[in-house]
């Protein structure tokens, strides 16, 4: 059976949910092999869980040089693997890094690349959502290896046992790939909430939240639902909430099962980042707000009374 490579997206060795989604997708195209690239010793706990989602092989490349430079070393390693294994496709997470690694691999291997897909068929045809989510395009790579980056939450991860046979890679990073060095990684305050890209439920606040303090009720609602917290650009630019939580054109693109927008008018730039959410609930005091055009359920009202009441109601019903 044809081999399909999947680049593992992980935080310090723990695979992110999107990795399992990619492995699930890869099984429709062929036999999945996970490619784990990281700092020395990080792969240890990942192997077993990669096997749980069907990885027959796990290629492991560990080196400080992978972690210390931006994307180019990973691309070199994957391009070499493609040369050796001739996979039928390579799937990447559609994160900033995943897309950049894929881009470099495409140049190195002379392949076509379809970035930011929301679906992938067994025959390798990818669906992309373009023009702010207004149009869906189905295309196929016609040159070289089929390279596709896929958005998180595009497919539910399904367990299926795989052998997860480990094959260590020799990592030799060329000087050319060491051009852009990561000199510092700053982690900004973040609670124990799920990652925005991976979360099944996202609760977002916008201009209507009023100030940084106002986000407390957004967070409380998020916590009762086990959700991630998002924010519109208006809210992050005003400094009410950290930039990494911005949902929209210039922030993160999310497509959770449930998206709750509170005090967000729904400008096109925001919609582009959340339009593919499965179910959308909007709370806004302006009945004309464009967010209501998208909403499966819209409540015209003051978020400062509705959101805490909703939090209370959910807590009560869960009890």
């Amino acid at each position: 059976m044809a081999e399909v490579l999947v680049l593992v997206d992980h935080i310090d060795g723990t695979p992110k949910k999107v990795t399992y989604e990619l492995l699930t997708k890869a099984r429709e195209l062929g036999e999945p092999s996970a490619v784990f690239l990281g700092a020395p010793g990080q792969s240890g706990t990942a192997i077993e869980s990669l096997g749980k989602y069907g990885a027959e092989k796990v290629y492991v490349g560990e080196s400080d040089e992978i972690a210390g430079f931006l994307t180019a070393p990973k691309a070199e390693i994957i391009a070499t693997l493609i040369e050796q294994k001739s996979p039928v496709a390579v799937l990447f997470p559609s994160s900033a890094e995943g897309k950049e690694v894929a881009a470099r691999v495409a140049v190195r291997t002379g392949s076509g690349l379809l970035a930011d897909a929301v679906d992938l068929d067994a025959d390798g045809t990818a669906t992309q959502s373009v023009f702010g989510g207004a149009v869906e395009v189905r295309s196929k790579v016609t040159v070289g290896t089929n390279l596709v980056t896929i958005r998180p939450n595009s497919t539910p991860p399904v367990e299926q046992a795989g052998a997860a046979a480990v094959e260590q890679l020799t990592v030799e990073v060329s000087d050319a790939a060491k051009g852009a060095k990561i000199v510092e990684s700053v982690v900004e305050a973040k609670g124990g909430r799920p990652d925005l890209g991976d979360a099944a439920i996202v609760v977002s606040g916008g201009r209507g939240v009023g100030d940084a303090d106002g986000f407390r009720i957004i967070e409380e609602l998020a916590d009762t639902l086990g959700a991630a917290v998002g924010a519109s650009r208006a809210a992050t630019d005003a400094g009410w909430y950290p930039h990494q939580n911005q949902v929209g054109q210039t922030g993160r693109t999310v497509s959770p099962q449930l998206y709750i927008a509170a005090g967000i008018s729904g400008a096109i730039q925001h919609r582009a980042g959340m339009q593919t959410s499965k179910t959308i609930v909007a709370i806004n005091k302006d009945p004309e707000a464009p967010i209501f055009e998208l909403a499966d359920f819209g409540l015209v009202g003051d978020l400062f009374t509705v959101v805490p009441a909703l939090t209370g109601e959910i807590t009560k019903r869960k009890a």
Partner: protein
Amino acid sequence: MGADKAVHLSDEALHGSCAMQTSYALSKVLGTLEYDLVICGSESTDARLSIMAPLIAERLGLPQLSGARKVTVDGGTVRIERQTESGYDVIEASTPAIISVVEKINEPRYPSFKGIMAAKKKPLTSLTVADAGIEADKVGLAHATSAVDSFSTRPPRQAGQIVKDEGDGGSKVADFLASQKFI
């Protein structure tokens, strides 16, 4: 806005080029120029691929510093802050290099009347594919690395239910969430 000169690559042969071919064409044009720093936007608003900077970097062997929300240049060193999912990374490289920037980088100033008049005198070079040394059979729809099979307008979302808060808004939303099995 302050540009000293402009180069415009325009040729019918480029019609229908994919991202791979666009990056090839831009790399060839860059090859006709002298530069210390190439600055790209982070992504287009149509397909939002956000891969042009890494594609060009790989083709030209330039260090790539992408997704910058802040840039400083000190002599031959360029340093950026790149937004990550948990905070930000500080990334450094020597010039020549290519960077891509997000909209947080600055607020564009309004062009002044004086600037607009001065701009009319700045040189604008137009290049064809042949001028830039681009091989015509490596660009354009017929040679694209991916092919569109079909496209469709996303069906508009079914009009949802919109209700007004009459003091029971919280419980109405909760009812909806329960009906969809979220709680």
